[in-house]
């Protein structure tokens, strides 16, 4: 069976006055129906731009330079804007980080949920209304009929994120991209929202791309995980394998730096230095100035992705 989503050699660059920033640099991954892929990385590593590129929402000065995004067999990057609009919010949906800014403050939540239903599924206003209330019920909003005419500011952060999820799922998408869906929420609310996404996913069998910086969230739910650093995927594997035997020094560093993995009172194993400036195109490995095991050739040449175990890929000279 063909994959639901097949991303190959995707590159997105930002053309800035002082140079070209390679936000996403030849990224490859694929996703099956009903599967969850996590993309993990720190701010500026290109994980959100990857999502925007798939959705074709990259704005100038950004531009998708090359690559292929096959969704159910058709290349999204070559679709006409009109056809893409047919897909967006219909077969592919996205949840954004900020429930505050991803809702329109001057429209009722009912209006915002039914918009997609009327547009994509050609429902009549009344049908959309009752369907909308159904969806609000599914995402766990208490007394949905009364809430239907509320404005976003009348809801709490967690409730707003439920509305955003309801909007994203209204047209029963086959692929959902969740970009840091719980970062802005409190931990107890985060647990609620993640459980909700899990439940809805297993009910509908959609594919999920979960973008996050929180390794804990990933460990509990994604089948595969891709670790991104400086615009590239540096390690890709089944999640349990990745946490058991992380191969890339950056992945190892991230896991070692977690307070959960340390003895209280003892210093944490921090990764020294900071994320490199992507404008400066270094000849060698992007991680080498922070890497504890670098060697001379790390500075000179870029490593490529190498399959080490079954389905475990890593971009590091140690394994070339």
């Amino acid at each position, binding site marked *: 069976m063909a994959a639901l989503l097949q991303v190959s050699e995707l590159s997105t660059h930002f053309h800035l006055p002082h140079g070209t920033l390679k936000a996403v640099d030849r990224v490859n991954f694929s996703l099956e129906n009903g599967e969850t892929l996590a993309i993990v990385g*720190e*701010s500026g590593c290109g994980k959100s731009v990857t999502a925007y590129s798939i959705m074709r929402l990259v704005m100038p000065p950004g531009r998708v330079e090359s690559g292929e995004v096959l969704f159910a067999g058709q290349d999204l990057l070559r679709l006409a804007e009109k056809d893409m609009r047919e897909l967006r919010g219909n077969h592919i949906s996205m949840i954004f980080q900020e429930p505050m800014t991803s809702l329109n403050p001057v429209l009722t939540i009912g209006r915002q949920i039914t918009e997609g239903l009327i547009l994509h599924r050609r429902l009549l206003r009344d049908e959309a209304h009752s369907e909308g209330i159904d969806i609000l019920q599914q995402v766990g909003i208490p007394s949905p009929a009364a809430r239907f005419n509320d404005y976003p500011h009348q809801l*709490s*952060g*967690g*409730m707003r994120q439920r509305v955003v999820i309801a909007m994203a799922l209204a047209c029963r998408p086959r692929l959902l991209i969740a970009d840091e869906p719980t970062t802005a929420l*409190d*931990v*107890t*609310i*985060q*647990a*609620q929202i993640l*459980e909700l996404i899990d439940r809805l996913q297993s009910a509908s069998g959609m594919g999920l791309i979960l973008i996050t*910086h*929180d*390794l*804990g*969230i990933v*460990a*509990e739910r994604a089948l595969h995980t891709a670790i991104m650093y400086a615009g590239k995927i540096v390690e890709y594997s089944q999640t*349990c394998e990745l*946490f058991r035997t992380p191969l890339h020094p950056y992945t190892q*560093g*991230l*896991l070692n*730096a*977690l*307070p*959960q*993995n*340390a003895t*209280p*009172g003892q*210093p*944490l*194993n*921090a*990764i*020294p230095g*900071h*994320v490199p400036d992507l404008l400066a195109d270094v000849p060698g490995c992007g991680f080498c100035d*922070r890497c504890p095991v670098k060697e001379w050739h790390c500075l000179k040449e870029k490593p490529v992705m190498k399959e080490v175990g079954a389905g475990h890929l890593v971009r590091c000279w140690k394994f070339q």
Partner: protein
Amino acid sequence: MSAPLLETTALRRHFTVKTGAFGAKKVLKAVDGIDLRLNPGETLGLAGESGCGKSTVARLLMGLMVPSAGEIRFRGRKLAEMGREDIFSFRKDVQMVFQDPFSSLNPRMRVGDIIAEPLTIHGLASRTQKREMILNLMEKVGLAREHFSRYPHEFSGGQRQRIGIARALAVSPRLIIADEPVSALDLSIQAQIINLLQELKKALSLSFLFIAHDLSVVRHMSDRVAIMYLGKIVETGGAEAVFSRFLHPYTEALLSAVPRIKPEQRKKQIILQGDIPSPLTPPPGCPFHTRCPYATPPLCTEVPPPLEEKETGHLAACHFSKNLYR
């Protein structure tokens, strides 16, 4: 036991809020009767979700806000009774590190001047000494000499937090109040700043009030912890005791909500139903009863549980502490 550095008794801060244009006035109890005690050289972690009042506590302790009731004592002296000069020296002894390294530094000032400002205000260094002192401080927090005359925008989040820490350290404080100092930082940088704070604490025998919502960070940093919910402390005690033998269902839920990396540490999550109630209309009885899986009416819905010592040095406000599933 040594005399506490900072102590609060029945500390309250209420705000009057008008609801709507003609609405009735309501009282928001942001901080509602809190007893804290911070010993010299100790780190007290204050944890809770947004809106629980932890930042209001920080502002009260800094003297940036006047309590509605209750008192704050610093080295045995009441804050409310201090004169101008005493307050001035109190402000030198207690410094703050803020959450957002982007908005807490003046974008028009150079790094050197930012760190120098508290020294100038408190008249602690002559012009000639000042530069040397600042360079020393910068070295201590891991900034390079050449950063002296740069502007904040030239730095990453982690480095800006280092500037903020250097500024707080400039006047050799006894207590640092750190309000979510690492929550805006990336994971790999977070560990660097946590280590820096730990090192400084040891080297300068500082005390910390460490406010955070990330329990794994709080556990790592703190000697003792206090967990807040809706303006009240629901559990407090030694860090290990609170995290491994919690006595309040809210602590249990918070801990269970932290996603685990290691599969063997994973257990059935307790997912709390509903949102945090509005502090404007707190529920009667135990403030947590609306979300508590153990709540039993009528006791929990009618009688607010007092914060009691359940084990030595370990206090909790729950009627059913003994029944928690652990």
